[in-house]
């Protein structure tokens, strides 16, 4: 955990949870792993606040509990998970794309609370829908509820949401962790919740005390079944998207990239897999155009939109295999059916290489970019060889290697001929240490995101009075519009209120809006880079 990481993490905690939690979180990160008392003393917060903060952090999976050998409970921060806070907007976007509006709201609710029971999820989402669509007559409560629960079940089945196990230990403290154990019972439970909840709603309408009714409730959901967002599944989605984007430009062909994506999905490779399992051509064809397989020739419109015929798929398969990059390889051929494998590591390596080369070219110029790429392909080179192969004048080449070396993009290795390191009798060889650069670039990303947030907050802080005034006046205007029946009567008043901003103020507000929008975009974009680099590291370490 670097200083930069802690700094960014505590800033993120402050953004999402506020000052106290950020302070406690920072203390835990600094201490590494510590008991409550130490955290309390170090953070200088009130004990009560400290406890509360830790609870929130634990609920969001950002701090974990361990028991040391002395039987003392210790808290440990998970900075990697704290950094996932950055990706929450992406999770919500993915949920919306895959599961629609309900999916989006379910994910939003769970992310807000950390862990939730199925009851709570449905209740919260329902209330939200009701509040937002007040004008619409909430006529069909039951259907909305079943819809929500259906989406929830779907998401659980797709593993975007998973169960959190709560385990009570002897001292009656609950420890929970995400679990993969999927019980059919759970699914049934959720389906029943919708029914139950609508019953409850009717109860409310009949003004009967809820507590009284509840006791009579025939179906009672398990209280300790909590659900959490499974970030791994979202990362899998992000990984596929990253690969798709990269391949699209690499193959310069949409269909080829989609084909590889289908192979990835089919193989269900786990997040840190270096390569997929072997997939047969039959599987691919079946997945892409199922009807072709079953009935032989069929009219084209019944097939998937991308690949019309089996021959088409075969052609593209040959295309991706014959590609120089060898992202997809043919492993074997059994009884005329080809078996294929996608090499995820290779794809990632290519992506990392090209992003690093683009970083180098952008920072030090195209000549350095050429030399850097040269070193990436040829691995170990003398200064002289670099000059000759890159066809750069000796003086420029020396400047480039010096620049790259001082900025730690390449390293200089010394191999003495004898026992002493006399310069005349030593080989000086340049080389690229990929892992080191990736790590330092990740640090750079942390710094960039940190700076973005700081600057955004600063700009908002400086113009706080103006922004507050704007929100206040906007609220007044909306109120006026809502409460008065006569539009013509209100218009002059609104006009007057708008006049209270000078042209300068308006320009400033416009600029602020543009600026914070741009910085937010930057945060998300830098996170893309961060994701790519972190995944590469994880794959090469754990894959």
């Amino acid at each position, binding site marked *: 955990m670097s200083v930069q990481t802690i700094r960014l993490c505590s800033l993120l905690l402050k953004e999402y949870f506020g000052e106290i939690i950020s302070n406690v979180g920072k203390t835990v990160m600094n201490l590494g792993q510590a008991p409550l008392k130490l955290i309390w003393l170090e953070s200088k917060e009130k004990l009560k606040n400290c406890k509360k903060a830790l609870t929130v952090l634990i609920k969001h999976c950002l701090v974990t509990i361990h028991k040391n050998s002395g039987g003392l409970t210790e808290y440990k921060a998970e900075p990697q998970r704290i950094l996932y806070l950055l990706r929450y907007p992406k999770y919500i976007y993915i949920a919306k794309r895959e599961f629609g509006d309900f999916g989006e709201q379910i994910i939003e609710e769970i992310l807000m609370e950390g862990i939730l029971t199925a009851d709570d999820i449905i209740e919260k989402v329902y209330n939200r829908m009701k509040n937002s669509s007040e004008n619409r007559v909430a006529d069909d409560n039951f259907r909305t509820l079943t819809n929500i629960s259906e989406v929830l079940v779907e998401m659980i089945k797709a593993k975007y949401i998973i169960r959190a196990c709560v385990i009570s230990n002897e001292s009656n403290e609950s420890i929970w962790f995400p679990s993969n154990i999927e019980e059919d019972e759970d699914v049934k439970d959720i389906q029943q919740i919708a029914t139950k909840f609508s019953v409850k709603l009717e109860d409310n309408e009949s003004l009967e005390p809820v507590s009284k009714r509840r006791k009579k409730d025939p179906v009672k959901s398990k209280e300790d079944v909590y659900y959490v967002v499974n970030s791994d599944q979202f990362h899998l989605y992000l990984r596929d998207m990253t690969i798709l984007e*990269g391949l699209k*430009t*690499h*193959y*310069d*062909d949409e*269909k*080829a990239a989609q084909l590889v994506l289908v192979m990835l999905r089919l193989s269900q490779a786990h997040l840190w897999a270096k390569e997929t399992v072997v997939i047969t051509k039959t599987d691919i064809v079946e997945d892409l155009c199922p009807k072709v397989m079953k009935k032989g020739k069929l009219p084209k419109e019944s097939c998937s939109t991308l690949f019309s015929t089996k021959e088409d798929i075969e*052609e*593209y398969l*040959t*295309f991706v295999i*014959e*590609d*120089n990059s060898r992202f997809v390889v043919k492993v074997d051929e059994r009884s005329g059916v080809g078996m294929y494998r996608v090499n995820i590591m290779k794809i990632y390596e*290519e*992506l990392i*290489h*090209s*992003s690093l*080369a*683009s*970083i180098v070219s*952008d*920072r030090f110029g*195209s000549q350095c*970019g*050429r*030399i850097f*790429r*040269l070193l990436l*392909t040829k691995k170990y080179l003398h200064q002289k060889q670099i000059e000759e*192969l*890159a*066809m*750069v*004048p*000796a003086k*420029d080449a020396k400047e480039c290697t010096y620049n790259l070396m001082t900025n730690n993009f390449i390293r200089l290795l010394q191999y003495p001929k004898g026992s002493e390191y006399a310069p005349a009798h030593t080989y000086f060889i340049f080389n690229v240490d990929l892992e080191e650069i990736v790590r330092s*670039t990740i640090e*750079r*990303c942390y*710094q*960039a995101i*940190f*700076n*973005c947030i*700081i*600057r955004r907050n*600063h700009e908002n802080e400086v113009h706080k009075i103006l922004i507050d005034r704007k929100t206040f006046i906007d609220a007044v205007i909306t109120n006026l519009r809502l409460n008065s029946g006569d539009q013509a009567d209100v218009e002059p008043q609104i006009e007057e209120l708008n006049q209270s901003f000078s042209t300068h103020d308006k320009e400033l507000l416009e*600029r602020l809006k*543009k*600026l914070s929008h*741009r910085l937010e975009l*930057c945060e998300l*974009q*830098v996170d*893309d*880079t961060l994701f790519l680099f972190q995944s590469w590291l994880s794959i090469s370490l754990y894959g």
Partner: protein
Amino acid sequence: MDSTEGKEFVARFLNLLETNKNGVSEKTLQSVSDSVSTKIRAECTNKLLAGGKIELLKKGGQLIYKLKNEDQRLETDEETVIYNIIEEAGNIGIWMRDIRLKSKIPQIQLSKLCKSMESKKLIKSVKSIAANKKKVYMLYNVQPDDSVTGGTWYSNNDFESEFVEILNSQCFKYLLRKAEIARSYSSPIERKKSSFVSSYEVLDYINETGISRVTLSKKDIEAILETLVFDGKVERTVSNDSSSSDTSDKMYRAINRTTTTTSLMRMPCGVCPVAKDCHLDGVISPIKCIYFNDFFEI
């Protein structure tokens, strides 16, 4: 001198000079070679003179040709020694210091001798690209090695980076045009195959355009194409076309870069040169950052 007639004349002429050590007058020469036209005779004589094989002397208002023999050219023993050492070095050449070490002739005398030999066109000095001020000596009629002159890409000891850059961009343009044409194919395999261009084709194109004053070899153009590969703009493969006679023909093709710009580079922090010193309460801080200010203005 190239024609059989010329060759015959040269042989007869040299023979004549051999027998008459004191020289042959123009008249005698004319009488001996009546059959040869004046034009050929003049050409051959000039070539022999330029090559340093014969010399032209004036004797009492009359021109005489005389054979210039090696013994005569190497006047002293020292010169012979130096000559042999330099001859040994071949087309790589030899450094003054190494001659001194080998011949054991003192520095001052050696440089004098070298100078005189140079003026007699026995040896020549060539500037080496390896070290700017290092001169190497080699025999007068020897073509210096590429390692001394640097090959095609050097003129007067300077690397012609502009020439290389122009060739680089021209080659890329050519490949790009090919790739554009290939885009019209619907089949991906066809599209790819037709966008590949062999180094021969590129070479022909470049030689045709006349960008280069010297004729480039296949090796030269491949070196240029390699730089495009390292620029990430071009992909290389080896042709395995069985119909072509040359099996190891290198093929090149213009490609898209896998990522255009890394998203980190789209904001000021990516390219910031002072990021190392950037701290919240430092002189350089994100709050006061001028790069951010510029970034917002865009």
